[in-house]
């Protein structure tokens, strides 16, 4: 039952992508797209799926997942302005280095999203992941201590991801 739900979900998502790519609602295109989406989903069904252990039907989680998007956009804009300010200054105002931070998240998907979010905000770049540790290249290191750096870089994202992935 759960597998069927997953199958339908992935097929529907792929079909939606197909329709956006094709750009019209011709019945022929829709039919071919549905067949192709189902075929691709069948071909990958033997492999483990990242979404398998995630329950999205909890309203609190859905709310936090939706709230994560504007938070992320806001973080990107703020960090971008900061980096742009550093770039245009006549004397480069950078203080780079690689720091180690520790994450509380256990779910691998949550960790992946955390690492990607950290990389996507300018000024921080995930270089390596090892166990619970993330090694971050930081353009302006003002906390070399692992805990302080974790608070500064990851805590904002973790607050959301902890709820979403429980």
């Amino acid at each position: 039952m759960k597998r069927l739900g997953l199958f339908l979900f992935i097929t529907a998502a792929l079909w939606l992508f197909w329709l956006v790519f094709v750009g019209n609602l011709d019945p022929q295109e829709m039919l071919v797209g549905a067949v192709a989406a189902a075929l691709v989903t069948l071909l990958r069904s033997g492999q483990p799926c990242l979404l398998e252990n995630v329950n999205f039907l909890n309203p609190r989680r859905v709310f936090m997942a939706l709230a994560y998007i504007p938070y992320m956009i806001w973080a990107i804009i703020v960090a971008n302005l900061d980096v742009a300010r550093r770039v245009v200054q006549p004397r480069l105002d950078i203080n780079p280095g690689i720091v180690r931070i520790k994450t509380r998240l256990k779910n691998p998907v949550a960790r992946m999203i955390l690492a990607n979010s950290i990389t996507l905000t300018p000024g921080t770049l995930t270089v390596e992941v090892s166990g619970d540790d993330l090694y971050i290249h930081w353009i302006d290191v003002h906390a070399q201590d692992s805990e302080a750096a974790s608070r500064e870089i990851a805590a904002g994202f973790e607050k959301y991801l902890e709820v979403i992935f429980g």
Partner: protein
Amino acid sequence: MAALDIIGALLVLLGSLFLFLGALGILRMPDLYNRMQTGTKATTLGNMLTLVGLGLLEPAWLPKICLIILFVLITNPLSSHALARAAHRAGYPLAAGSVTDALREDEQAGGIEPGSTACQVRDPGSDPQPEVAE
């Protein structure tokens, strides 16, 4: 309709300003990792703003343009992370003014498994010496 056009044009202008600043950053920054910071990611916001602005100029194409933005959002951190990790494993050093390199320290202490080619620069032909901060 006209208001949408004006907002779109302003977004395009703002976005291309960020694109330009990102490219300026990649030229000015002292080492590979800092170039990655400004280059690939300051341009992400520029890319997004420009594409949204262009989408507002032509609302019929907005779904497809949103798909392009989604693609950039997903692939950009992946490629910059892969490149940074590979470069660090191949032994490219941080710029001279850098504060700390916890990863290199931990690799040398044996705390984490170093990469298969750690601590050796693979293309000595180009010029492997550390780049000095300007």
